């Protein structure tokens, strides 16, 4: 009886834990009910292209969370380093080198690495000095870096660094980089490497997953492990249904084939980051991240260099975020030099939290699901505003509120729970002392 009650309590608790994803799914479904004008293939097109753009950056947030640094709003600095690299490469390419789009992209990736790693090192050192306040420090250091970034691009370029004033990227008076820079051949340089129709990808992926599930199931059965048959059957049915559905829609040429093609190179980048994040957690370094994240005292006494481990986590996150920003920007025709990075920290953090992550826990699947859910909300919000209140602006304000509200709520609930737990343990210690 007591056990049953406990189980029920656990279920209710897990519902409370997953309240944010549930709200987001409900919101998107509500959008479909309210706005009959949104065709499903349009929604899928929008959602998938937003996913290719953003997933990499959201994934870059995981490592600092595991290493106990919390949500690294400082990834905006990574984004800024990527933009600096793009500006340098584009400037040189137009001026002297005349590179092809792919070569420009490769140079951008290479040049981003040292810039982002260096700045990541500095921010990592800063976080070590602001221990316990990393999240507010990461937010403020983003603002601070934005000032330095503007100083370099608006003032130092032309006054300190000599540039040709008639260059198309430089302002007419010869000082500062223009507000927008044309991406030239860099545009779609990654996406255009290989494109495959959406439904074909769905077919291939679902067949692969189907095979994987069956192989794993048989392997576990052979080993005599107790395995969950129900999940196996559900998975098999879902993947089989998806494969059949995609074959059907390809043959009948249904409307769903209008969904944009899948940029395979981008998807491979995202997939390899997922694998990388999973693999690094199995190495010595990954174990260090974990133990530092759990308790810095214990990690220190176990001979782990806590400060260094934390810095490595920040450097990795910054470099990955910078590459993520490159992937994001090559999908855009123009680079908004002074605005493209400002919101990226908040949006990525919100997306991760929507996936069910917290300040101390984040996984690859949470990042991926969060990116999907968050962007669904982003697409549907103005549509709902238009349909329900006749005002798209309302929907836009609403989604801004969701971004800040989600971050605030997730942080608040986390700290509140942590404080409550520590109070409970303190109380029990007090009681023990009294008993003695």
């Amino acid at each position, binding site marked *: 009886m007591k056990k049953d009650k406990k189980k029920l309590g656990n279920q209710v608790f897990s519902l409370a834990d997953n309240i944010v994803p549930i709200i987001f799914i409900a919101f998107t479904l509500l959008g479909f009910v309210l706005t009959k004008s949104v065709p499903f293939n349009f929604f899928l097109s929008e959602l998938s292209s937003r996913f290719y753009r953003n997933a990499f950056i959201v994934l870059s947030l995981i490592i600092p969370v595991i290493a*106990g640094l919390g949500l690294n709003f400082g990834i905006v600095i990574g984004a800024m380093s990527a933009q600096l690299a793009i500006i340098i490469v584009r400037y040189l390419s137009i001026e002297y080198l005349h590179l092809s789009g792919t070569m420009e992209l490769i140079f951008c990736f290479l040049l981003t690495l040292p810039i982002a790693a260096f700045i990541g090192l500095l921010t990592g050192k*800063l976080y070590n*000095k*602001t*221990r*316990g*306040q990393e*999240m*507010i*420090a990461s*937010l*403020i*250091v983003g*603002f*601070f870096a*934005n*000032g*330095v970034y*503007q*100083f370099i691009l*608006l*003032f130092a370029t032309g*006054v300190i660094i000599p540039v040709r004033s008639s260059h198309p990227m430089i*302002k007419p*008076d010869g*000082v*500062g980089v223009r507000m927008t820079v044309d991406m030239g051949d860099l545009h779609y340089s990654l996406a255009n490497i290989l494109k495959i129709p959406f439904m074909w990808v769905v077919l291939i992926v679902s067949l692969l997953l189907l095979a994987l599930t069956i192989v794993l199931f048989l392997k576990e059965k052979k080993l005599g492990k107790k395995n969950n048959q129900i999940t196996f059957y559900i998975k098999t049915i879902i993947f089989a249904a998806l494969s059949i559905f995609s074959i059907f829609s390809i043959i009948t040429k249904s409307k769903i084939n209008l969904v944009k093609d899948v940029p395979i190179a981008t998807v491979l980048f995202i997939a390899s980051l997922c694998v990388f994040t999973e693999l690094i957690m199995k190495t010595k370094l990954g174990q260090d991240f974990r133990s530092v994240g759990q*308790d*810095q*005292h214990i990690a*220190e006494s176990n001979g782990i260099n*806590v400060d260094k481990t934390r810095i490595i986590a920040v450097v990795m996150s910054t470099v990955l975020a910078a590459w993520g920003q490159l992937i994001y920007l090559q999908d855009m025709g123009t680079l908004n030099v002074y605005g493209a990075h400002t919101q990226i920290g908040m949006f990525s953090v919100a997306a991760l939290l929507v996936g069910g992550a917290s300040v101390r826990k984040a996984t690859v699947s949470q990042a991926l699901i969060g990116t999907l859910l968050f962007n669904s909300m982003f697409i549907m919000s103005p549509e709902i505003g238009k349909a329900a*209140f006749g*005002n798209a*602006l*309302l929907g836009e*304000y*609403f989604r*801004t*509120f969701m*971004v*800040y*509200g989600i*971050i*605030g709520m997730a*942080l*608040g609930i986390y*700290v*509140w729970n942590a*404080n409550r737990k520590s109070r409970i343990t303190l109380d029990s210690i007090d009681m023990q002392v009294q008993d003695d």
Partner: protein
Amino acid sequence: MTEHNVVKEKDLKNSFLATAIKTIGLPTLIIAAFFLVVILTAAFLKQSLPILFSDILRRFGMNGLLVLAMVPAIKSGTGPNFALPLGIICGLLAWTIGIEMGFIGLKLILLVSLMAIVFAIILGYLYGKLLNAVKGAEMTIATYTGFSTVALMALVWLMAPFKSKQMGWMMGEGLRETIKLDGVEAAQIFNNFLSFKVFGINIPTGLLLVFFAFCFLVWLFFRTKIGIAITAGGSNPEFAAASGIDIDKNRIIANILSTILGALGIILYSQSYGFFQLYSGPLMMAFPAVAGVLIGGATASKANISHVIIGTFLFQGLLTASMPVANQLFEGTDLSEIMRVILQNGIILYALTQVKGGGKE
């Protein structure tokens, strides 16, 4: 013998510098020196100093109350009030309701202030409760409380059933982003009260009087029994709790006070500007105020009225003075704005590195 003397002299020099840094604070000294350089450059460039000083005084008085709002929060131990937009929202809501009711002039300002105080007490109480639940991460939570309230209020500004022609668009629904106060005769009321000129410098007497009056009131408050209890709870919570002080209650009181000062602060600020901004206007307003008190020599756990006055004067003075100087020296660049961003966030980061506690130590 001589060597000994040299060493002593060096020690003396070092200790003089050390005491100066210790008593005034390194950031304050650096900013003050910077401010002096900018003023001298302005004089050298033959810019009109009376106009410059008039502007500095106006900006000083305008921002003063918002910076003063940091003091109760810091003293109570919740850190700088990064949720200042909460107070600002109270002030703005009061403005819109007051204008909607059709009041004008001084009557409007007094009514608006009264309403703002009522709103601020309610919101400040809830905010204080929230802060007590999230001890240890107040600054981060406060920032997002401020952000999300501003975003939520954007919905309210868009949907509120206001009819006044002073605030609505010519067509469509919702309030305008910028609402002018000349239309309701509320612009520069305090600035012009008893204002006079000395050496061509315009002294906004009323504005400064209001600011200093509130400084005095807050100073007085922290001399009362409850004020002392708040300070004690902030600086040494264990000791205060042991001597029977209800710290949680005091933190709430301090944050109500801080929210009220923020609400009144935006009223003083906007009457001086001649307009107020809705929607994302208040989103980032906490950061210059936090930077102001820190530049005056405050830390995340210690602040005084003197820090407010010195810090606001130096920071706002520097920003006001550097604009025309930078524009004349480097035409076409927005160097003073860039400098504001770097200074403001640099000083906050510096203060964060001085915060004790956290995981390892």
